[in-house]
């Protein structure tokens, strides 16, 4: 029973020690990061069964709740951190020697910091802590964006502008909450939310939404996403698209379901999510740059998740959450393979990627598996989540929403298939560059995709439990505060 704090502490420690390691040996930083993520995964596996039985709460500094800063790991957080650890491990492996920047120690430092930040967002039980970790994540992301010299600065500036404005709103929200409730602990706020003036609750929730949704991929707050995700190196794009969005949505969910569970707000969330979904898909179809297309697809998928979860029923929430996790896995696969294809072809445009599947078959197959997973082909993991989403929204009687979701999927098909057809059946039109082919991450990810597709119960059983926890606030409150 290893202390879960280590999950956050280890990457931070490694990040600060990397300059030292770099002095010893140039290759050491990447290996250190890899080892850190491996250890994280190990810790989680060791603690898995226990957390399934009962959520784990850890108070820092041995202060009691509601005064302490605490870490809360329930079933939802458990699944999230499992997924995060697996994916960060794979990306760290990729970073060993496949990325353009594998030899720069600063890259690994920032990567380690961002991983720590992501874990923190997911596991925290305290809203100011949430703010701190969001800031850690975003600052590390600002830095990671600028690694690609030609357009990285412009994208990072836009990111900073929007990020700063959102953090202002987030701070305002936290300030209002603290002044209304008197504590920063999430459970206390949850318990006290009935007593706050309802108008104030709504203002606070709006401010929270604006503050966090920018990190979670909802248009128009995530308008920086296409620029940033397409400019960043592939490993960073996958981290941002897969993991940061995962953390952001998880935080949003916790706020809107555990903290301020106001059902009348869900309609707003649904509409915002639906509009963002449709717009995201339509613009994605227009793109010729493959990474921009994938970025818009991420926005659309996150909006989809938000829309479905805000339906509010058990089936819908579990479907949305499953889609969230699947998306993390699939988007990583997509960005990694897309990065390799871009390096091979020397161009980011889809039209230049013609016919390269004959030369780099496994990478092309990896991309196809990722796309087919997002589209929901049977026996891929996306199929199960899509079916659950449709079931969930029909169960709640939201026919228009179902129609919009399926319509968005059809548009998704249009642009993903465009790419697949070009890479498999097009004519080769570029001079190939040499790349270091990395097979292990791709194969591992493909295996995970199919594994989840054929045995979805690996995730759906814990998911049901997680949904149950989400929907019953009182359990949450009593879990945290009950020990008082």
């Amino acid at each position, binding site marked *: 029973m290893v202390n879960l704090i280590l999950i956050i502490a280890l990457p931070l420690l490694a990040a600060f020690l990397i300059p030292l390691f770099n002095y010893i040996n140039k290759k050491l930083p990447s290996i250190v990061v890899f080892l850190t993520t491996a250890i994280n995964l190990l810790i989680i596996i060791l603690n898995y069964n226990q957390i399934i039985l009962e959520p784990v709460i850890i108070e820092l500094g041995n202060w009691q709740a509601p005064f302490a800063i605490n870490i809360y790991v329930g079933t939802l957080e458990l699944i999230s951190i499992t997924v995060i650890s697996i994916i960060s491990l794979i990306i760290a492996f990729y970073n060993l020697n496949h990325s353009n920047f594998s030899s720069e120690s600063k890259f690994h430092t920032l990567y380690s910091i961002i991983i720590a930040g992501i874990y923190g967002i997911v596991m925290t039980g305290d809203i100011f802590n949430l703010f701190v970790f969001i800031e850690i994540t975003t600052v590390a992301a600002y830095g990671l964006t600028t690694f690609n010299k030609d357009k990285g600065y412009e994208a990072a500036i836009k990111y900073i502008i929007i990020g700063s*404005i959102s953090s202002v709103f987030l701070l305002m929200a936290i300030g209002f909450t603290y002044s209304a409730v008197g504590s920063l602990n999430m459970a206390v706020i949850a318990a006290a939310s009935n007593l706050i003036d309802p108008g104030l609750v709504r203002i606070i929730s709006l401010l929270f939404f604006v503050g966090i949704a920018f990190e979670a991929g909802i248009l128009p707050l995530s308008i920086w996403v296409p620029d940033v995700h397409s400019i960043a190196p592939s490993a960073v794009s996958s981290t941002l698209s897969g993991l940061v969005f995962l953390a952001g949505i998880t935080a949003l969910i916790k706020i809107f379901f555990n903290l301020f569970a106001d059902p009348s707000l869900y309609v707003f969330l649904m509409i915002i999510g639906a509009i963002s979904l449709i717009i995201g898909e339509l613009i994605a179809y227009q793109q010729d740059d493959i990474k921009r297309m994938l970025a818009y697809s991420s926005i659309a998928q996150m909006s989809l998740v938000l829309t479905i979860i805000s339906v509010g029923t058990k089936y819908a929430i579990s479907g949305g959450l499953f889609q969230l996790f699947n998306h993390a896995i699939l988007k990583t696969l997509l960005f990694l393979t897309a990065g390799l294809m871009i390096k091979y072809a020397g161009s980011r445009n889809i039209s230049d990627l013609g016919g390269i599947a004959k030369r780099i078959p496994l990478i092309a197959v990896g991309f196809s598996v990722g796309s087919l997973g997002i589209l929901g082909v049977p026996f891929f993991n996306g199929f199960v989540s899509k079916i659950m989403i449709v079931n969930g929204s029909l169960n709640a009687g939201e026919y228009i929403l*179902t129609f919009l979701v399926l319509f968005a999927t059809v548009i998704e098909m249009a642009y993903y298939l465009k790419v697949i057809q070009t890479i498999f059946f097009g004519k080769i039109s570029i001079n190939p560059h040499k790349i270091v082919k990395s097979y292990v991450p791709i194969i591992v990810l493909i295996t995970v995709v199919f594994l989840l597709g054929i045995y979805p119960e690996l995730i759906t059983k814990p998911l049901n439990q997680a949904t149950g926890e989400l929907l019953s606030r009182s359990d949450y409150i009593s879990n945290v505060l009950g020990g008082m």
Partner: protein
Amino acid sequence: MSLFYYTFIPIVIAFIAYFLNKKIKLSLAILNSVVFAYLFYQISRLYNQWNIPHETISYYMFDREIQLIFQLTPLSWLFIFMTTGAGLLIAIFTIKSQQEYVLRSSFHLNFAILIGSILGVVLAGDFLTLFIFWEIMTWSSFFLISSGKKKAAQKASYRYIILSTIGAYLMVTALFIIYNQIHTFGYNQVAAHLSGLPITESIILIIMLAIPFIIKAGVFPFHVWVNGAHSNAPKEFSPFLSGLMLKVGIYGVILLLYFVPLYNILKESVNYRGLPIFNYILAIFGGITVITGTILAIRQEDVKRLVAFSSISQMGYIIMALAISTPLGFTGGLLHLMNHMIFKTTIFLSIAAVIYRTKTTKMSEMGGLIFKMPVTFTAYLIAIIALAGIPPTNGFISKWVIYQALIDKGYIFLSVAAFFGSIGSFMYVFKPLSTIFLGQLKPEHENIKEVPFLMQLPMFVLMALILLFGILPGLQMNLINQISQLLNIQPVGFTLYSITGAFGKWNSLVIFSLFVGGFLLAFIIFISAKKSKQVGLMDTYTSGEYMDDPEAYHYAYQYFRPFDRVFDSFAARSLTVIYDTFAQNIVKLGNLFRKSIVTGNGQTYAFYMVLFIVILAFAGWII
């Protein structure tokens, strides 16, 4: 052998063989043939074992176990038999015909997956299994069509899959609406539930369930994908597309209407002349399909497109016959289904043989190939005699039964459409015959030889089947009556060589013997006259001119120009244009969003955030 294995063996073997094929060149095609032959053999042994219990596989989804059910009925037996038979013949054909085809390993991989998924669709015992395998079928056929050599293959397969998926999503929506009310996917339970719903709701749900099948069958107004898919698919896949993929759509229609059976629910609704309105509209669409397909087929210059449109019109026949819901109609529809598969595959295989040798699909560039490729010509000739519905081939029998069914009920428009299609088919089948095989031989085709034996073998088998079923339709009627009994439709009387129609019996043995008699007489008179002198093709009547260029004397381009002129104004306003405009409008909408929202300007983005809050605040978030 468990039913489940029929579905999965091809898929698994496909993946194994794909990697094997990198080492040994032809192994995929041969392996596929062997596997299909084995499956075919096993399936033929399954005949008459209708009492095999259902098989289930558990799959965990939502918060409970979902069962995937497989079952065997005479109806599904017919389809799996046809599928593996067609797959076997085509696999044998491709052993030789794909020697220079670059993408042949992916072709065989996807082909095997496709066969496995069609078996899954047909053997499914509940809607969810059907849907899962239906999706896999759509995707593998998408990859198959994309691997055609022409550039237009991508666009065609695109259109195909988007249209198919829209249909599939409609079905899945309807399916889950029902599932949420009864928590199961089985056929009988769904039918029972639907009959309990108010009539409008159930009709809407039935239409939503039926649409993917109608799209797959290529019935008007969803026929826009068939043309592109057939002409751009690899030449060995087109026979399968016409012969089987369209039929799987028909299987779905039969399944819904008669097996589930939704017909009983539809009967409660508005009836027009004894037929539920849904069926009537479906039949009318079938009739329009026949007419449209025929007229468009006559216009084509590319032989594969011509045969593609002909497939569309024949599907219209089958839908018409099935939709009118009489025993004769059902029998005629199923007969035509089987016969069409046989003769359409033959036509496509012979065309594939011609394309294999001449490397072109435009009819005006070919000619006079009868001397060089006699076996192909004979196969094509017999197949088009069957297609045009001329005795003593099997095509006549199925058409005759359909006419009986239509005239019996007095449906004027449908009968006229059926006859129109039949007469029109004389025109369009004759066009390739005269432009490809007859006429002047082009100088560049002087050295063409007949196709290899492995490619001729499937053609022989199919020719024999055409004649066999034409003389002895009882062989088919046996199975069809078993299917009719399964579906609670009154069987049609028959003997080994005759069928009882509404206005009389059809005795094919008599017809055949009379045919032989007439021919013999003509032959005797012919022989007894003087022997004639053989001259070359260039030695014809030219009003005293010298002939030196065979191409100028080959009447092939725009063969039916006067007829086409009649329809030029209609063809310009084709349905494809409507679909394309709709798609383009959506794309334009996206463009509009992109230009207005994504300005690339950081200040604008900041503004968006504030605007967002203000709008939400006033929209009611903050009261």
